[in-house]
């Protein structure tokens, strides 16, 4: 998507290349495209308009830098503005040192409040703070039961008042109980409600005024469309929100609604939910989200995910091996194994900004299954073979294939892939983080993460060939600029 936006902008700005300034007239097509992109990403339309005006104003009159293409330049402005709008970087939820911190979680039905409560409790518990969950959703059947199960899974007490019909009283009593038990944080899971349901919104206000929570958090479904503006505004007017959590961002939703919510409430975005499992809650980063809304990848989140998910010890071992310049099939296996957690692969690829052909590839091929097969093959090798795959002759190959239950040619494929990757990994061992990220990007385009595939070098766009006339003109222009610079000095 990002690429399609960028390609589109490039097309729209073709005529602009090498021309002086960005003007309203010559940006029109590009801006129209940008507007469409934002609408398709579910950014509220009023917000889109405001944003477009802002971008136009800022871009107007900017000189087209010779070093940048106009589309890149506009893209840069758009990205910066988005990051600024979405920012600041999330500050985690503040927990008081010696007193009870009360968190209240609210939102529409089905936005993911209860699951988010569980995730929050887990996160806080990991910081060695005692947490208590409060089942204040008396509306939905079995909501209490759901929270009870979640509490059990995390090992956090859940306050339940059987038979009680009034959520306000439940919250009040729960807080009393929490004070008595000296827990650090209490999380109130309220029932989902429509923003236009005045009765239920008044009930939320009553809870707010009687319990006086330290933080009120709105949970917003990442797939929400234009309605986000209305509901966020209503919740903010009723409760004065302190933060927003956007959920269900592990799919292909672009999450443009977040921009609307941010725009109408002005409160910081705290976390984003990226899965059904209880640890799938990530600190919000505006730059990643900006990329997502524009349809680009989120590389920083990828690195973060890799760091969190990957078994530290295995990573250390692999790192040591690499530093020694050894990249054996054993190391390869540990690397592969780390990617085996179900869904992790998909998530990582999404964060990298899946290109359309990658998506197609994944649909055709079961990447996770492929890894399993590869690990199986490595497992069927002798230690000597793993250290030195050159040993593998046809008869060994057949043995390995039998052992792993695969076809012999797959073994050859694996060895080939190893051969290609080992110099790269060895190379990587000597690199800093930035260089590694660059390499990861490279690998993405060359398709390394597609087990069994051959390396494909994607040929880049060679650009338009200039005629000799044009070349001469450009040369003239450059020289003129050089002279100007000299003069200024």
């Amino acid at each position, binding site marked *: 998507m990002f690429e399609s936006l960028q390609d589109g902008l490039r097309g729209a700005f073709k005529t602009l290349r090498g021309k002086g300034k960005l003007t309203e007239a010559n940006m029109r097509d590009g801006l129209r495209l940008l507007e469409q992109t934002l609408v398709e990403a579910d950014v509220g*339309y009023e917000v889109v308009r405001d944003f477009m005006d802002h971008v136009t104003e800022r871009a107007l009159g900017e000189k087209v830098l010779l070093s940048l293409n106009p589309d890149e330049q506009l893209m840069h402005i758009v990205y910066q503005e988005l990051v600024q709008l979405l920012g600041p970087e999330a500050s985690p939820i503040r927990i008081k040192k010696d007193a009870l911190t009360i968190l209240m979680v609210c939102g529409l039905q089905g936005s993911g409040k209860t699951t988010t409560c569980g995730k929050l409790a887990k996160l806080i518990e990991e910081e060695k703070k005692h947490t208590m969950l409060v089942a204040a959703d008396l509306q939905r059947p079995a909501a209490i039961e759901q929270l009870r*199960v979640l509490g059990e899974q995390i090992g956090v007490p859940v306050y339940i008042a059987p038979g009680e019909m009034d959520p306000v009283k439940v919250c009040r009593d729960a807080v009393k109980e929490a004070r008595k038990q000296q827990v650090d944080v209490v999380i109130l899971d309220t029932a989902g409600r429509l923003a236009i349901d005045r009765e239920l919104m008044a009930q939320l206000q009553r809870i707010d005024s009687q319990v006086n929570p330290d933080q009120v958090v709105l949970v917003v479904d990442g797939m929400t469309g234009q309605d986000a503006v209305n509901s966020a505004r209503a919740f903010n007017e009723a409760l004065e929100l302190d933060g927003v959590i956007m959920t269900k961002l*592990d799919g292909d939703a672009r999450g443009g609604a977040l921009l609307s919510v941010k725009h109408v409430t002005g409160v910081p975005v705290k976390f984003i939910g990226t899965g059904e499992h209880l640890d799938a809650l990530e600190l919000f980063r505006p730059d990643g989200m900006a990329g997502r809304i524009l349809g680009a990848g989120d590389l920083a989140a990828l690195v973060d995910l890799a760091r969190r998910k990957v078994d530290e010890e295995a990573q250390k071992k692999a790192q040591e091996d690499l530093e020694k310049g050894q990249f054996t099939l054993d190391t390869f296996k540990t690397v592969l194994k780390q990617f085996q957690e179900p869904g992790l692969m998909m998530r990582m690829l999404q964060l990298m900004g899946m290109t359309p052909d990658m998506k197609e590839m994944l649909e055709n091929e079961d990447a996770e299954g492929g890894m399993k097969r590869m690990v199986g093959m490595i497992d069927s090798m002798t230690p000597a073979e793993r250290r030195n795959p050159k040993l593998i002759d046809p008869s060994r190959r057949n043995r390995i294939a039998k052992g792993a239950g695969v076809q012999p040619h797959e073994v050859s494929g694996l060895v080939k892939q190893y051969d290609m990757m080992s110099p790269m990994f060895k190379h990587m061992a000597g690199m800093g983080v930035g260089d590694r990220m660059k390499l990861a990007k490279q690998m993405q385009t060359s398709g390394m993460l597609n087990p069994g595939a051959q390396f494909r070098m994607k040929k880049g766009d060679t650009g338009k060939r200039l005629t000799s006339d044009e070349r001469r003109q450009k040369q003239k222009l450059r020289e003129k600029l050089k002279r100007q610079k000299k003069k200024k000095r």
Partner: protein
Amino acid sequence: MAWFTRKTEDKASSSAEQAASADAANRQASGGRLKQGLAKTWQFLNTDVRDLFKDEGRLVDEDFLRDLYAVLVKTDMGGGPADRICKRIGSDFRARKVHMGDILDVIKVEIKSLIAQPDEPLQFAASGPTVIMVVGVNGSGKTTSIAKLARRFIDDGKRVVLGAGDTFRAAAVEQLSIWAQRVGCEIVKGKQGGDPASVAFSAVARALETSADICIVDTAGRLQTQTNLMQQLEKIRRVISKQIPEAPHETLLVLDATAGQNAISQARGFSEAAGCTGIILAKLDGTAKGGVIIPIRQQFNLPVKFIGVGEKDTDLAIFDAEKFAEAMFDQSKK
């Protein structure tokens, strides 16, 4: 009309409508509910469209079309359809002074033509139980919609068996069990974390055994991008068809009316993996317009069968394209 007043006036309004027609009482009530549920929608749209006009009418120019585009996009119909409607109005009325009525008529006709669908009631099995599978993303309203469907069938004098196929989410089985108890039908449960396909299998088996009329199979919420979970849906389908070859007779996708353009991707993903035959548009009682069904209707052959307009088990209405478009721009109410 605000939703909370609706609750108390529910009876009164539905009885008023009963007088108007001799149709079955509950059907009539849900017909009224559609309008009430959409009340916010058209109120919003109507005031928005009305804002565009002054008393003496307004000149149709670039500015006007941009404003109209904004109003339409806010219904979640997406850039494409909104553009199409604006173009149509631009070509028909450009440089003329128009009044609201003219414009509204054109928009209505255009929307009707965009969402027009053949009258497709649910497909029932010729003999034996009809199996309905319900799918959708997390939190779209699957379980509640199932309860509403069950209630509807029971009111029609049918016997219903539910299959609690959401074995993943904590307490999902309990949630459906409570509903089963409330509407009064049998439920087949599996173990938490168990295989949903086996639950589906036993639910269908139970329906055959007790010669029930309808078997509704719940599934866990999943995102359309989770390939492995989407494959699980195929498996559930396969397992269901082992006992009744033509089952499931219906696979209904539950869409959240507040969802934006991602609903298109949902419709695509679920129809590819689960072979959906129709849509239930849930949560239409809020301020969301559910306009995203317009691009969905255009791109996929997926009729909208029902709409959900509240949290009660009777808050389900048959979708009617004509009424939907009318209700969106109804002028008579204030």
